[in-house]
């Protein structure tokens, strides 16, 4: 094992791209070899990290602090409490981070929806973002499941195709940036799973009476699947451990249902311009099945599109008398609520469509009082007392049993 390979805890440094990518479990050896050849830079994990197991058991390091938050356009735009909950939990655990403005979308939503792109553009967008993280000294943490999956696809393409590397390197040179890839591509839900004991240690609300159904996000564990996190303790290692492991650590009861493997129905272009498919799939194949087989209090998932689809698709089905009406949260919002976050100031649940109020009541949260507190905040803004609310404002905790 090379010194570099040993430092990263990975197998032998590869001599070239592995021919059969289907059997590849650890791309880090190839990345290090490309770095040795001067083809690219590998941003290393250089701070305290927690080691998790991937699908096939290789160790994946999750850096705890000093993280560069690669935000999600769908989260920030339409369900902003998803993003603010991620930040809030990290702040509460005392880990520093960078919320950058020199970040663009991964643009993969458009890539998968309209195909008005190509592999070179997608790789250049990814590397530009990774270069921005590298320049900052913070290690990237990816908020969106699609960004996470797509960036792993891009990494595969860059490893395998020297002509693509050359093209991207030339574009980066025009931007004054290097071709950089991180040692690991890390999804925020992996960070939450890795830190679940610390999150549970700061839990102030009792979730033992809460039943959850978990929707694992397709782009998290189906694209370049070997990088996703698994554990023998969760469904015998047959499903990803993130989300389920976190919910269990918080004392909730995770209930199974038969269509867990099905996608949510997002469809990328469908959610925007052909929602008859999205609504039908989300309700008939997911929400109704969950209700009939598991009857949970909430659906937990870990991707932008899944929260949006499962939450927004229920209204029309309800009008048709279907068996829907189930709160939908991200794992980050769930964890934040467990740690005492305000349902509106932090988790921003007023941006959601499916009724979350029965869930809050079951969690012991007086949502009417919390809404009144948030309305008071808004009046302060309207009166011009403040231009924006900040993290200090967000730290007001709604009353309820602890």
């Amino acid at each position: 094992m090379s010194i570099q390979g040993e430092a990263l805890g990975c197998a032998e440094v590869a001599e070239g791209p592995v021919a059969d990518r289907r059997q590849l479990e650890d791309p880090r050896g190839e990345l290090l070899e490309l770095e040795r050849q001067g083809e690219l830079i590998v941003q290393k994990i250089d701070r305290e990290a927690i080691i998790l197991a991937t699908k096939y058991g290789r160790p994946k390091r999750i850096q705890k602090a000093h993280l560069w938050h690669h935000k999600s356009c769908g989260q920030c735009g339409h369900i902003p409490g998803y993003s603010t909950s991620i930040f809030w939990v990290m702040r509460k655990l005392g880990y520093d981070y960078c919320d950058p403005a020199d970040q663009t979308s991964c643009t993969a939503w458009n890539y998968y929806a309209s195909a008005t792109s190509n592999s070179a553009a997608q790789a250049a967008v990814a590397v530009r973002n990774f270069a921005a993280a590298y320049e900052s000294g913070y290690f990237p943490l990816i908020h969106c499941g699609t960004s996470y999956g797509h960036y792993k696809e891009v990494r595969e393409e860059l490893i395998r195709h020297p002509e693509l590397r050359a093209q991207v390197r030339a574009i980066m040179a025009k931007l004054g940036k290097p071709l950089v890839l991180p040692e690991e591509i890390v999804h925020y839900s992996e960070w939450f799973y890795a830190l679940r004991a610390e999150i549970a240690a700061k839990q102030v609300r009792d979730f033992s009476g809460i039943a959850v159904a978990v929707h694992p996000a397709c782009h998290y564990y189906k694209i370049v699947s070997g990088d996703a996190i698994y554990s023998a303790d969760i469904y015998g290692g047959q499903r990803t451990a993130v989300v389920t492991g976190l919910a269990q650590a918080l004392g909730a009861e995770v209930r199974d249902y038969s269509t867990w493997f099905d996608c949510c129905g997002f469809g990328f272009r469908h959610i925007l311009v052909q929602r008859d498919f999205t609504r039908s799939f989300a309700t008939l194949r997911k929400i109704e099945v969950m209700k009939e087989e598991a009857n949970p209090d909430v659906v937990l998932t870990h991707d932008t599109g899944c929260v949006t689809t499962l939450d927004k698709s229920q209204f029309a089905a309800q009008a048709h008398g279907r068996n829907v009406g189930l709160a939908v949260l991200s794992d980050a919002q769930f964890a934040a609520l467990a740690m005492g976050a305000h349902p509106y100031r932090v988790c921003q649940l007023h941006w959601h469509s499916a009724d979350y109020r029965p869930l809050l009541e079951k969690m012991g949260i007086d949502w009417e009082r919390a809404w009144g507190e948030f309305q008071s905040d808004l009046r302060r803004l309207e009166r011009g007392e403040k231009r924006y609310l900040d993290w200090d404002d967000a730290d007001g905790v709604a009353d309820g049993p602890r």
Partner: protein
Amino acid sequence: MTVTTAQPPGPDAHYKVPDLTGYGDVADEVKVRLFEQVKADIRFGDYLYGCYECGICVGACPSAKFYDFSPRRIAQAAAREDVDLVYQQMQEDIWECSQCFSCLRCPRGNNPGGIVTIMREVAVRNGLTSAKEALVAYSRIIYKIMSTGTQVSPDMLRPDAFPDWGPETGDVADNLELWRRALPAETMHTTTTGWAVAERTLVELFVIWMETGALDLVARVDPGLYSILQELVEERLEEEGIEL
């Protein structure tokens, strides 16, 4: 190369009924050219290894449950180099794919969803009718992502755009500016983008669109949108003194 141009779409189990498909047929040379573009993509060899015809991909596919769509047919047509069927799929099938990549369950390691991605790009690049029709209502999204660097924005949440998302969408629209100012994260007070994207970063993104030909792809499916974007991008790059 070896290509199959055996039969035009007709009474064959592999083809959809031509009377219902609604697109015009084209010369074999055009079909061959389009398939050659699909095959020439650097990703193609990573996405197709053969097919057991086991149907696992179809069983996992959400689109197959709601449409006359089959990821197995996608992989098989590409593997057989059946340019007639590939052409029909490019006109009829590819926009039904959900791009969820459940089909990666394939025991051969095929990626039918990835093949669809490539076929869509070729359909866009060649201005096929299916691409134009699929993207008719999508132009505003292309404009948003290419001009601002974020895909969807808070000000897109309007009741007329999402009437099926319930009255909460109207609440968001009515209170948008105030609710965005109530977000504790400093980068998220924006209404026209998901977060505040730095000006320099946007310029860098424009360079990427120009250098990779991504902007040119829009020209074939929406010339009007292309003109608007081209003017915006070139003007901004000129201001920055960037020549490409």
